[in-house]
């Protein structure tokens, strides 16, 4: 059929200056199939996707559409021919409505005026096709991340996409939201759309893809039907070494003295009556759907939001009105939003590293030499890989940014650290390193809270997991009870109903 497209990359090479980042890549996307492209950060996934969708031209090699060689002038040209890339960071105008976003740049007009009725009708039809119940007139900033993803897909479909390329579509989605997305992907498959997606979550890859291509250092190291791979094989091919033990074994003993006791903590609008205890040297996981108030509850605790309730830190009653007070008492929060709240992207590593503990480096004037020493130590201790010491932090890879962020927090020498989404959007090799850092910190006697949307992560890391639902602690699991099933049930309120009826 002419409205189905097969996009092929044949022998694609791409160099940036003297460095070749893609070597002889062959990938074919067939209608009605989901193709997963996996690899560590820097393996060449983004470059491959950009070449497919007209954002970059290959250095050598050719692209074909239904067997006919094509060369896209730019991304608009690729879109016009039915190939659309959905970026990892949403490309939506927050202030505009869903409908306005879908038709942005392609508005339907009648004469001089916008044909709102036609656009509204088509928006409804598109969203219905995707089973998405979001209101077409809602502003994008007010809708959930999963819905934003749907709007992106609807936008792609409205441009008649036959080949859909998705860069880490589930990175910002919770497990449940991701499930909704995958249902839609199945529908698109049935409609004959060819789909390529990238993900760091190998269970998803296993679940929804038909074909898998694994990239390492710009080479295709493995390619074939998804049924030929299990997760371990994928991970091993990606990193070129065995990663079956992703989570380190617990080294030290968990203390029994309470480091942090929270009772009746309420953050208006986000969290209500939250109580828990964190022991010395313990790793406590907090799980829950996005929007369950996990992050906001902790922000209330460390003085980033106004909150009420009792907090005892090492036995002393405390009340933090600002993060600097919390820091002075030895409690630090590492944000989930490393680009927006964690690091100054246009500043260097030195300025970023010491920002949180600048007073320690200041005696009337800032001691630059001491800062450099601290940076050298941090680079070594946390294995931060940067092209030069003076590189702007925004040019580092996500994994290295996260390592720098951890180094920055640890420089403040907190006794209790809350790490929110420690490995979001980070490749598996770096993830493993970060898990080791977290364990090393706990072995040093620091108490750690890990907030994560990845069930595997909290289960693998934590000694105990608190599950939050709609601003309240829905339950706690530990030991053999720490299973994805238990946590999901608590997070979605399935067990709560049972309790209420008892």
């Amino acid at each position, binding site marked *: 059929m002419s409205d189905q497209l097969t996009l092929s990359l044949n022998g694609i090479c791409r160099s940036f200056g003297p460095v070749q*980042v893609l070597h002889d890549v062959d990938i074919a996307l067939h209608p009605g199939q989901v193709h997963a492209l996996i690899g560590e950060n820097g393996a060449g996934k983004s470059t491959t996707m950009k070449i497919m969708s007209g954002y970059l031209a290959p250095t050598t090699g050719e692209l074909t559409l239904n067997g006919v060689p094509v060369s896209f002038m730019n991304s608009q040209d690729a879109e016009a021919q039915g190939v659309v890339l959905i970026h990892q960071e949403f490309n939506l105008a927050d202030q505009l409505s869903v409908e306005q976003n879908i038709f942005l740049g392609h508005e339907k007009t009648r004469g001089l005026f916008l044909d709102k009725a036609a656009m509204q009708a088509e928006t409804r039809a598109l969203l219905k096709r995707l089973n998405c119940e979001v209101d077409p007139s809602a502003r994008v900033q007010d809708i959930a991340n999963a819905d934003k993803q749907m709007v992106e897909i609807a936008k792609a479909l409205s441009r008649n996409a036959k080949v859909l390329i998705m860069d880490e579509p589930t990175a910002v989605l919770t497990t449940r939201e991701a499930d909704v997305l995958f249902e839609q992907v199945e529908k698109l498959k049935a409609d004959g759309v060819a789909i390529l997606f990238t993900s760091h979550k190998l269970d998803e890859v296993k679940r929804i893809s038909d074909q898998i291509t694994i990239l390492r250092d710009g080479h295709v190291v493995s390619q074939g039907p998804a049924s030929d791979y299990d997760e371990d094989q994928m991970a091993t091919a990606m990193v070129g070494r065995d990663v079956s033990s992703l989570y380190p074994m617990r080294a030290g003993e968990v203390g029994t003295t309470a480091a942090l006791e929270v009772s009746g903590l309420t953050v208006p609008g986000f969290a209500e009556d939250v109580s828990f205890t964190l022991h010395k040297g313990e790793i406590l996981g907090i799980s829950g759907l996005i929007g369950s108030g996990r992050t906001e509850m902790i922000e209330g605790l460390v003085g980033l939001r106004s909150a009420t309730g009792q907090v005892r830190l090492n036995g002393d009653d405390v009340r933090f009105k600002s993060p600097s007070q919390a820091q002075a008492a030895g409690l630090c929060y590492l944000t989930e939003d490393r680009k927006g*709240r*964690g690091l100054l992207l246009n500043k260097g590593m030195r300025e970023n590293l010491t920002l949180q503990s600048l007073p320690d480096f200041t005696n009337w004037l800032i001691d630059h030499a001491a800062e450099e020493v601290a940076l050298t130590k941090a680079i070594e201790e946390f294995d931060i890989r940067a092209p*030069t010491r003076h*590189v702007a932090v925004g040019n580092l890879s996500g994994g290295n940014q996260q390592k720098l962020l951890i180094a*920055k927090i640890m420089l403040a020498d907190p006794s209790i650290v809350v790490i929110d989404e420690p490995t979001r959007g980070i490749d598996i090799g770096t993830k493993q390193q970060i898990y080791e850092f977290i364990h090393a910190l706990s072995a040093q006697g620091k108490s750690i809270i890990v907030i994560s949307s990845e069930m595997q992560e909290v289960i693998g890391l934590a000694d105990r997991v608190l599950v939050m639902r709609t601003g309240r602690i829905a339950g706690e699991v530990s030991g053999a009870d720490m299973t994805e099933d238990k946590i999901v049930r608590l997070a979605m309120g399935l067990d709560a109903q049972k309790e209420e009826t008892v």
Partner: protein
Amino acid sequence: MATAVKNTHTKNMLLDLKIMGPILALIVLVLVGAAMNGNFLSAGNISNVLSRSAFIGIIAVGMTFVITAGGLDLSVGSMAAFIAGLMILVMNGLLPTMGAGWPLVMVGLLTAIVAGTAAGFINGFLITTMRIDAFIVTLGTMGIYRSLVTWLADGGTLSLDFGMRAIIRPIYFDGILGISWPIIVFALVAIIGEVVMRRAAFGRHVAAVGSNDQVARYSSVNVNKVRMMTYVFLGVLVGIATIMYVPRLGSASSSTGVLWELEAIAAVIIGGTMLKGGFGRVWGTIIGVLILSLIGNILNLTDGVSPYLNGAVQGVIIILAVILQRDKKAEG
């Protein structure tokens, strides 16, 4: 990796141009001036240019901090006029009781500093605590101070008592070792400002707040306090600039300090500080101030171009400066 390395490489070259640009422009202006008029490099002319630059220069140092923190202050020109008026009124009012003399001058100076601090505090309070946009707040206070000084002067001019004028004249016209007081104060403010921006925790915090205030907040920086301090510092510096200004003419009117805010902002931008905040350099601002006053001076000294075109030439320089310092990686 390849792209990152390449980026930093081109960035370094751009950075060089960014650093060298204002200095080169200043050197070119000096050479042009020297070639056009033999008096240009005379001690008298240089001293005159620097003394006149001092008012804007002192204010521009404070403005560098405000802009680097992501703020803006349009009220400084009116604020200077209002403080000048207030200073004159206070000194004239206390003259019968205190008599002409240095104690009264001290009261005048104190008035200027206190008024400047208060004015800066009001701007800062409205912008940080009340969370009103800096542009709107200072547009408002700009109108308020301008109107107040006009009202105080009843539409005319506020003149300092003649006896007092003779006493405070030396603040502008005298100095030590042949260097006038305004130049000395300007130099001191510039040096302190540069050290604070580059080496003090406050300077680092100012740049962090301007770069991304959320990151600063999550890094335990008291964002509101940092912002507030930039406006208070600027207010104090406006007070100091006014102290230098009043002895020169001994009067204040509704036309005092008109457009000073724009000259100060222009000097900051020419010097390479980013208007959207996050990066600022005080020495660049000093060069910006000198470039702007040299243009005026050269046009006055030479016959070729009318001095009335001063504003036009300054405007071209400002736009050129921004074009040269633009980040080249704008999206296509």
